[in-house]
């Protein structure tokens, strides 16, 4: 394309869609930051800027200069905004609130103008720069919904709140926003010379996105991307490449699914730590003695020479639910000889797929529940747990292990690595204890976790995975690791001391996180593995290690709004805001009223139209009875209507004779009637003999009755607009 041709095309109608897209993007970009008026100003100035670009692109101004001017303009807008914001005189003149608003307005306007003018000009000059404007639009929309990441369905507040207030689902609205932005981006990419082609593409893109959107509604929301990986809690939990290389030759021999295993990872994936995975509802007030709620999903008790895996031996770990249940299922009863456990009911709603149900320790009964919102929750089940009401330290002096255990089971739970260093360390720990306690197994277990808490350093980044025994590498090395390391180390040491122990895995939540509410939100950051030992008459007692030092920042506390919102959803309640504030209600009401009026109006109009059509049809048929001198015309018209009813009508440019010849098969007499009609119209003679005409008309009607099936005739008689086609 020559320069001239390109310049000529700048002003094509297709170029006028772009300003709208620019305006919308700028408005969306500034909407979360500031007042509505600022977003409106940005919208307007972006539109103007994109329009200004059309004449600007025609000038001789060099392209790099335009790009530079754009950057300078945006920088100037930032500077201007900052200066005005800080300037004392400015706030004195306008008052603080007005000054802030004005500064925002000016900054946003200048930035939008500079940005859209330069970007649009660049895109007009060279097609490759269209990518920049696509990025601009995409970024604006992404910025709007960025807070929605990690399953925070109540974010961004400025959008979600009003939607939740109406009892809607913010996710749907955000999907719509995404669809809209996608459509705009596609439109920019498909900018055509022709306005109508652009419009067509936009419509097609919207249809496509609508399709995607509707299928999302049907197939449910996509599963949370990650979270709780490496602990074997969730399916499709692929081992990292690093881990596979290191232990590729060691296929798990436990017969369980490949992904249900603990992994030592050098670099524990902290991606998706904020992704909500489940929400738990407490049916009764329960305060955990340790201040932590432990939700056990699985346990690893079999030592395979390298680490602990799921047990293959029968009769062990019977308290773990083998799979999701389809009916009310009673698990192995948890011993509760001295009443140290309390019965507690919880409801668990899974937001992500899990390999098996987890429950507040220790589960006794699991029954599936009806899913209140199948597009959001994967599964909902109710658990009756027998939760500990006393601290682990109260079990000092109690025997460990179960009297009913066979020697094999006891051996299974006390099988530890043969590495002498474990024995040495265990002896060291025992040596540091008071002699009367050192003989007590429960005290020994507590001492192990206490020692590890004191000596270990918590970090998701460590360097033990490549070692032959990662636990030994951790324990006898730098003692930097995460829960898997600590749990293994604790269990190995307990077992070395003769205490039956295992690693439990699941989720742990600080009691403070529920903030007095009854719903507990479990995110990827809550996934955990811990050591536990068996006390006779009590069952498995969790004896967690809490390292005193940590190299990692503490995970952010869960969003209490989201926790409450999801909890209500799990209860099957439609989320309702506190108070009666429903800002969109007037708009919705007017929309409903408009819709009702529209439906009524259209219905009435349709009825009137139908009545009118039938009236005209009827009149045209009976008019020959009253016709005087115009009988030839009116009578012929009536017969034309009769033919049109059985869908025989004259084509455009077809002469009346040709039409009559065409329908001669159905109505031979129509030919003669046509001749008489044309004679009146085109010959010098005046009227036609009315009797002859009537006779011909009767003949035509009779022939039609014989020549056309009655269904066709009756259907034709019912069609109100059939006469429109007779001409």
């Amino acid at each position, binding site marked *: 394309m020559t320069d001239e041709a390109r310049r000529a095309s700048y002003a094509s109608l297709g170029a006028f869609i772009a300003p709208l897209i620019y305006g919308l993007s700028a408005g969306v970009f500034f909407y979360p930051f500031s007042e509505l008026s600022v977003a409106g100003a940005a919208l307007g100035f972006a539109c103007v800027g994109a329009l200004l670009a059309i004449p600007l692109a025609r000038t001789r101004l060099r392209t790099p200069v335009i790009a530079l001017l754009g950057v300078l303009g945006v920088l100037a807008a930032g500077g201007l905004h900052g200066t005005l914001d800080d300037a004392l005189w400015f706030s004195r003149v306008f008052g603080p609130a007005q000054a802030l608003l004005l500064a925002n307005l000016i900054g946003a306007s200048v930035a939008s103008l500079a940005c859209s003018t330069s970007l649009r000009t660049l895109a007009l000059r060279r097609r490759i720069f269209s990518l920049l404007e696509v990025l601009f639009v995409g970024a604006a929309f992404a910025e709007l919904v960025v807070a929605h990441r990690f399953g925070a369905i109540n974010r961004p507040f400025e959008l979600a709140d009003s939607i939740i207030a109406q009892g809607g689902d913010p996710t749907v609205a955000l999907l719509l926003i995404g669809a809209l932005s996608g459509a705009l981006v596609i439109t920019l990419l498909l900018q055509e010379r022709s306005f109508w082609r652009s419009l067509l593409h936009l419509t097609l893109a919207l249809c496509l996105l609508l399709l995607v959107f509707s299928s999302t509604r049907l197939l449910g929301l996509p599963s949370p991307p990650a979270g709780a990986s490496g602990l074997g809690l969730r399916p499709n939990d692929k081992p990292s490449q690093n881990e596979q290389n290191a232990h590729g030759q060691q296929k798990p021999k436990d017969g369980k699914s490949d992904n249900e295993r603990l992994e030592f990872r050098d670099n524990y994936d902290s991606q998706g730590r904020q992704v909500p995975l489940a929400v738990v509802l407490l049916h009764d007030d329960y305060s955990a003695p340790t201040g932590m709620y432990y939700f056990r999903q699985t346990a690893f008790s079999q030592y395979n020479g390298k680490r602990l895996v799921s047990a293959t031996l029968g009769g062990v770990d019977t308290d773990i639910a083998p799979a999701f249940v389809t009916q009310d299922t009673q698990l192995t009863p948890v011993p509760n000889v001295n009443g140290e456990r309390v019965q507690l009911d919880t409801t668990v709603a899974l937001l992500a797929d899990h390999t098996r149900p987890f429950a507040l320790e220790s589960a006794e009964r699991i029954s599936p529940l009806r899913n209140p919102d199948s597009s959001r929750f994967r599964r909902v089940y109710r658990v009756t747990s027998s939760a500990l009401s006393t601290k682990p330290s109260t079990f000092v002096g109690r025997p460990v292990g179960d009297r009913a255990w066979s020697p094999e089971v006891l051996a299974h739970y006390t099988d530890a690595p043969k590495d002498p260093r474990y024995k040495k360390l265990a002896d060291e720990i025992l040596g540091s204890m008071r002699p009367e306690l050192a003989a007590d197994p429960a005290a020994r277990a507590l001492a192990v976790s206490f020692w590890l808490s004191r000596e270990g350093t918590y970090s998701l980044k460590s360097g033990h995975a490549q070692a032959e025994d990662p636990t030994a590498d951790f324990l006898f090395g730098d003692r930097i690791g995460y829960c898997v390391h600590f749990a293994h180390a604790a269990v190995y040491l307990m077992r070395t001391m003769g205490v039956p122990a295992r690693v439990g895995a699941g989720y742990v939540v600080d009691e403070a996180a529920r903030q007095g509410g009854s719903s507990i939100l479990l995110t990827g950051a809550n996934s955990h593995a811990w050591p536990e030992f068996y006390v006779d008459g009590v069952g498995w007692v969790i004896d967690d290690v809490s390292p005193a030092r940590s190299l990692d920042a503490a995970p952010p506390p869960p969003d209490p709004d989201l926790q409450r919102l999801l909890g209500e959803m799990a209860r099957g309640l439609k989320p309702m805001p506190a108070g009666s504030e429903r800002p969109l209600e007037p708009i919705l009401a007017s929309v409903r009223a408009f819709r009702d009026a529209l439906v009524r109006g259209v219905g009435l109009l349709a009825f009137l139209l139908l009545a009118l059509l039938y009236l005209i049809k009827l009149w045209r048929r009976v008019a020959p009875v009253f016709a005087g001198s115009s009988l030839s*015309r009116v009578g*012929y*018209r009536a017969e*034309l209507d009769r033919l049109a009813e059985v869908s025989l009508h*004259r084509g*455009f*440019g*077809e*002469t*009346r*004779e*040709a039409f009559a010849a065409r329908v001669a098969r159905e109505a031979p007499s129509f030919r003669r009637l046509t*001749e008489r*009609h*044309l*004679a009146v*119209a*085109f*010959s*010098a003679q005046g009227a036609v003999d009315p009797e002859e005409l009537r006779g011909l008309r009767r003949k035509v009607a009779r022939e039609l009755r014989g020549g056309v099936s009655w269904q066709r005739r009756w259907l034709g008689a019912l069609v109100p607009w059939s006469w429109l086609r007779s*001409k």
Partner: protein
Amino acid sequence: MDTQGTIPTGSIGKPAGLAEAQKTLTTLTARTRAVIVGRDDVIELVLIALVADGHVLLEDYPGSGKTTLARSLGDSLRVVASGPIAAFRRIQFTPDLLPSDVTGSSVFELDGNRFTFRPGPIFAHIVLADEINRTSPKVQSAMLEAMAEKQVTVDNETHKLDELFFVIATQNPLDVMGTYPLPSPQLDRFLFKIEMKHIARDAELEVLTHYPKPSLQMGDTMPKVSREELIHTRRVIREGVHIAPAIREALVDLARALRSDERVLQGASTRSLVLMLPALQARALMQGRDYVSPDDIERLAPHVFGHRIECTPGVVDKNEVIAASLRPCLERLSKLSLSR
């Protein structure tokens, strides 16, 4: 034409005159149809041209019966034997033909010691000009003068042709080597150009069935038509068949539409419209009507305008161009009949 009239105009009422004219047409049609099989549409057009005082150009392949058609028309005429004008003559045009071969020439007569004019083959009622594009433009122009003026000029002396002078010219559309194509002003002299298609299978079979019996004799038993009857028919039709003002409007609209069509370089002339009127009347009467109807326009327009308009290069189907202009005009006419 004023000198003619064995039947006084004033003495008959219009219906009677028209009925007689229609009878004449029916006779001609029947005779010709008896001889020529499977060419009813061509016969109709040729007879219309004969009655409308025009000439026709047949675009055709050799051996498709055009001579037979022309001769049967000639045979249909009852000619005064003593007259100098033959009923039918055929001129085979060749490149070396001279104008005098067509028109006739002055011959020195020893008896009277003077030149006397010996009329050429053109002095006939019906002339078949075979392969008219094969002869030189000189001969063509002599021929065309005769067609337009009904006279020939030899040695500055003008010799009138008969009032009933009808030329059927032919040309082969494919065999164009060594031909002199007729330029458009000369084509304009022909009322119709008729492109003949090969006849239908049944018709062709019928032609073969009649093999031993020369087809030309088949119509011998039928009545003939005299020259006077034919000329009278012309006048009766001209005066008796009504042309509604709307029909004339439609013709003008059609010509204007053709001229404004961007596919058309040269549109239809006003003369063609004037020539078309008697043709429309003749066709109306052949259909048994005493008025011209839109159907007549639809039937004749392609043959009247097909050889008169010139289209831009690349336009293959002239008939479609004409039909495109024709359709709105016909639609208006059809609407008119209901709205009046």
